[in-house]
């Protein structure tokens, strides 16, 4: 998965955490990334960058809420404190990265396309495939017992 690769990222089972609500929302991010891959160039309008980052903020808001609510419900903090802290840290850092990209946009400083896409790809790989999956496993384990 390189940012220059314009092939769409196809959703597959390896992205699934097993928690339907989370997976459904992850698809939206994959979708956003795919769209950015196709549409975004360094010459793209500020509006497009604006729209993309706004979508990311929206994603952060409802998706992190979903995940953190699930964490609260199943006692993730109490049982897996280190994982919980790490997970929350990643969420906050995602939001603040997006906010700082937007701040730059306001000053007319456009983040390079590849940097933005690399950030999203990275997020997909590191966060969804690792951090979220750990949460998914914990939640599923909880449901079984």
């Amino acid at each position, binding site marked *: 998965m390189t940012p220059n690769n314009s092939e769409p990222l196809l959703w597959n089972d390896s992205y699934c955490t097993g928690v339907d609500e989370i997976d459904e929302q992850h698809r*939206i991010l994959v979708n956003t990334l795919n769209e950015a891959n196709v549409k975004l160039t360094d010459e793209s309008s500020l509006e497009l960058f*604006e729209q993309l980052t706004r*979508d990311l903020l929206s994603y952060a808001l*409802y998706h992190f809420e979903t995940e953190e609510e699930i964490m609260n419900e199943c006692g993730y903090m109490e049982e897996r404190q280190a994982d919980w802290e790490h997970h929350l840290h990643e969420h906050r850092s995602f939001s603040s990265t997006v906010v700082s990209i937007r701040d730059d946009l306001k000053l007319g400083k456009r983040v390079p396309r590849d940097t933005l896409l690399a950030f999203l790809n990275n997020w997909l790989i590191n966060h969804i495939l690792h951090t979220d999956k750990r949460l998914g496993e914990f939640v599923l384990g909880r449901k079984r017992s």
Partner: protein
Amino acid sequence: MAIPIEPVNTGQNKDVLSKLMFQALEGLEFGIVMFDAEAAGHPVVYANSTFQRLAGFRVEHGLAHFLEQSEVDQAALDTMRQALITGEACLVDLSRTWDDGSQGWIRFSLSPVRNGQGTITHLIGLVQDITVTRQTLAHLEQSESRLRTILVSVEEGVQLWDAQGRLIYANPASQSQLGIPSAGTGWDEGRSSPSDNQPSLDERFPGQQVLKTRQAEKNLLMRLDHPDGRLGWIRISAHPILDHETGLLMGVVTSTADITDTVNQEQRLERLAHYDALTQLPNRVLLADRMRQSLARCQRTRETFAVGILDLDGFKPVNDTYGHTAGDQVLREVAERLLAQVREEDTVARMGGDEFALLLGGFVSAQDCERVLLRMLNSIAAPYLVNGDLVRISTSIGVTLYPDDRSEADTLLRHADQAMYQAKEEGKNRIKFFDSGLELRSRANQGTLRKISQALIKGQFVLYYQPVVDCRQGRVVGAEALVRWQHPILGLLSPAEFLPLIEQDDLIIALGEWTVSEALAQLGQWREQGLEIKVSVNISARQLHQREFASRIQALISTADPEIAHRLDLEIVETAALENLNAVSDLIERLHEIGVHIALDDFGTGYSSLIHLRRLAVDTLKIDQGFVRDMLDDPLDLAIVEGVIGLASAFQCRVIAEGVESIDHILMLLELGCDHIQGYGIARPRPADAFLDWFRAFRPDPTWKLAQSPRPGPGDLQLFQADASHRHWVDRVIACSHNPTANEPLAMDYRQCRFGRWYYGQGMARYGKRKDYLSLEALHQRTHELAERLGALVSAGQAEERKAVEQELFECREQLVAQLKRMHWASMSAVTDLSARRAVTTDFQQVRT
């Protein structure tokens, strides 16, 4: 035929035997007669009583008389007469009218009797009453004839097949229906026994099935391709024929009816119901059906298919100019052109008017699909010949792709329609793909909007206050109210995280108004607590451009004490103000009338000209924090900051620098003449209570006093800037060494860094003759050498040595900075008290290290 005339010799007396025989003959049901063949007229020699009763003629008369007198059955009598001549036996049936008046039939057989020389001496006749047999036969013949009449005349074909599936009988109608010749006359006629060259049952013919299952098949529809190319449809039923007694299968009877007309009629009706009469393309109904099929198939096979809506551009003028007949002709041609571009299994349907629908499959990627659509676009765009004129139209196509767009059939059409309208809006004659991701996200965004609206109702928003400090005077002059979302799960969210999501919705107006009334309430509370400062609140672009904005603000303010309302400032983003300059300019005037002050926020991000600024008549300019933050690194940002300060001074409005992070920023701003400062470098935003605590504990930073000396001249400002830029360059070198990927590359050449450019340029021109100035060069070069070494060590991964070099770099920097400071003081006014100067120096160094 020779009849044995010699009786069997039983040894009995001939007379007794003869008597016995005559008695037996009398009792027979057969009539027996014997004629003398040699006597004239062949008189009767003997006749039993049965004969006399049946034959119906007098025994006194001979055979000749019988043959001559009879008026009926001449053909039969001829046969008998002929037999008499030839001396052969014969058998004839004769009709009789008996003495009692009843009528009937007899069978008369006559055989010659020869003597030892072979001469015919007698004729013996046997007569049998065959009336009943004849009647039965007649009935049978009558019945069969009736049946045959029926079979010949019915329109249904009837065929009879034997147990081997060979044709035994076929009525005439079968020929026209099935193309098989009528054959046989009936089931049990031995002479029509089937032969191998007669048609036998086709495997597909339902009769064949019946032979296997012995179960009747009824009302099956069979398609017939006639040799002449006609297409026919027959309805067919097949019944097994079982032997009544044995139950064995004897064959099959099939009946066929030609229902070609009915089927054709049905098809015509179906066409009317499912096809557009003008273009012969499928209509909406059939399209819906095909879409259901495609959906079902593609769910299974995971194929992709496209649903498109195609609307002609500029068709109406054709209709208006050339009339409907010509318009219809164009539509037909459009249909043909479209069909020419698709595969047979694709669907082009007419939705009505000049709108068509497409159902396309067989491609792998969206690009493939687009190619097909592009061909359509081009073929539609080719000219049409209408009433001798060349006419051009084009088409706008909207498409959505399944399963990217995993919707129901109706929704797919609606999505394609939406995309088509977009294509129209974007200038027609183009293809627009429906953005399923956009739809998905817009739904998600709607959800976010609802959440934020709920949060407002539930009171989850709070105001944080960030102090604005006049650093020259060392006092707090105000605070900016900043909205925070106390999210129950995600914690405290900054406005940058959620405002962008509602800035295009009226929700941001509701939130803005809440902010104003909340800030007013806070001002009131603080006043009671002895805190009297100005508070500014942010007004969004949407709120600002709301028609009734000024009156709503007035309404909000009217609820508060005028003294308090006077201390409320509204911050308007520069870019929003420029959107409608005239309206905003009028608005500012109105707000001034009610005592509300206006600040232009994020100043520098728009493109305000001096004229704009004059028109707007604002009270305060707030320099965008981005420029302030980067001004120590980026000379262009510094230029903007300087420029804004200059503008504010020229238009006599207050200027506030936002985003101040460090003491260097503060000192630089003070040097530039901007006294009102806001940012983390002074205080973070905090809740109202905490703000009050902070305010009470506030003491100005003694370092700020550095700038309380009389304003330095431009030359000294240069020294100050050189100091700041050099320190920042080193800070960044060190930061880079800790996190090599974080920052953009630095200018490593000592002539290219900001300090270097100043030193060999402006600085040299002004101070080049001074010894202390020239001594800076070596220190500067040494700093760069150390930076290079540090970089090399980082690449090599030598952590221990790195620390030492870092320390050395730091010290070297401090030497250069100290040298600059000395030059700075040297050029300061001689009036400044030396001890005060020393005190400041001490403070400064304490802060530095």
